[in-house]
């Protein structure tokens, strides 16, 4: 079976939320047939290693197979959170597009 590498944005959408210094990013595949491939590519370790200077803490991945979704919870990811961050994007709202920029491998043509 041939596999191809695509930016996550081509096969999934994402939305970021925040609480304190914790960011959470949910990822939803457009086509349920891509769920297992994206799950295999987009591990918690992979996300944690993607932007280490920004996402400094532990990354936990929750799976919601019934809805074909993945939920990433990133500790210590908001430069101290709204209390301390000097980032214009205090809440890390734009993080969803950092994750959508990552490449994943899918088997569907």
């Amino acid at each position: 079976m041939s596999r191809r590498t695509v930016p996550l944005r081509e096969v999934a959408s994402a939305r970021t939320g925040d609480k304190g210094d914790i960011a959470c990013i949910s990822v939803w595949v457009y086509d349920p047939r891509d769920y297992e491939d994206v799950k295999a590519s987009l591990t918690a370790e992979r996300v944690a290693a993607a932007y280490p200077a920004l996402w400094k803490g532990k990354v936990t991945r929750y799976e919601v197979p019934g809805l074909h979704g993945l939920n990433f919870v990133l500790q210590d990811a908001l430069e101290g959170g709204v209390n301390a961050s000097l980032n214009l994007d205090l809440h890390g709202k734009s993080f969803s597009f950092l994750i959508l920029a990552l490449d994943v491998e899918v088997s569907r043509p």
Partner: protein
Amino acid sequence: MTVRIGAGAGFAGDRIDPAVDLARRGKLDFLAFECVAERTLAYGHLARMADPEKGYHALIDRRLGAVLADCAKNKTTIITNMGVANPRAAGRAAVALAKRMGLQLRIAVVEGDDITASIKPDTKLPETGKTVREHGLRVAGANAYLGIDAILPALDHEPHVVITGRVADPSLFLAPLVHRFGWKVDDWPSLGRGTAVGHLLECTTQVTGGYFADPPYKTVPDIAYLGFPLAEVEPDGSAVITKLEGTGGVVRELTVKEQLLYEVHDPRAYLTPDVTADFSTTSIAEQGKDRVRISGAGGRERPEKLKAIVGFDGGFLAEAEFSYAGPGAAARAELAASIVRERMQNIHRCNERIRLDLIGVHSLHSTAVQHRSETQDVRLRAAMRTPDRLMAETLLTEVESLWLSGPAGGGGYRGTISPSVTTQAIYVDRSTIDLKVEVMQS
């Protein structure tokens, strides 16, 4: 029996016209307005310290004034946390507003969330392990997240408007469902399903096509005219999420999914004062245009303690910007940034952390990725937090002085100093909360 409940605001700065549309045409039983974010309370406390009749939602007259008459006419009960740090004063403002509009309304004010008096110098802050004294900042105020048990007694008075301070966002929606359907307050699965409905509605347009568009992958029709959502809720807690005919936006499986896990950590354990909701078992099914049915969420026993937020007066946030455009813009902006950094350190002996962004080259993700950019339009942004007002002003002056002393061709200076409030979460015993309902009449 179906209960129709709409969302009238999803944050303090939300739009007003879609709420008016819902009040007029929604045939709603309830319309809930969520207007408080984590730090809104601390700002409210600072405003109340400055003026004891303030500290509630600043736009209350405009926001409530726009819908009061239609809601009274259509027998729609308004539930809102516009009381922020001063629910009683918000109640008085709402009474005065109703009088001016010639409306005779019952307004129920819920109090008990303000636990500022219980915060002592030796109160532990679990996020840091330090006490309030060791934390070193002045306490602005503290509020517990109240749940449905605070709102239900107010609904027993059949009010036109319920005004609260800090309550958990989904509880604003769950309370009227429990009230109408007669759910027991320990019927955890029903409370879990009702919480899912509240969670989906509480950010208004984030379920009707807001915060969603990413062309060409995701597009949203009539995006400038997004409708606010409403739910048609069944007695078992399942519901159809929809919006009014003729409004912009879209309600589809994916808008509902994205919002279902918004700000959720473990989908099996979404903690509120009312229930430990389980969203992982939710079924989401499109039922015709802009109608999505949700069912199957679950729930377990509520958390033992209540979460509370302590707000601190954290000094000042200073931000200043200056722009460079044309050939070499990025190099000139970078030079300007180095001038500001050197002068703050060497002339002003400033020890605070200063962030320097080059907007157009790298800003939001500057610590993560350096975009290689050929842009010829770059805006320098300097930002710093400090307890020292003079030092905050100095940063602004240093950026402003780039007019005469910086690289060639810069312009467009703006600078602001805003209060910097900070927060810490603590957990309190439910027994320490003194719930009160006062009914006011216009």
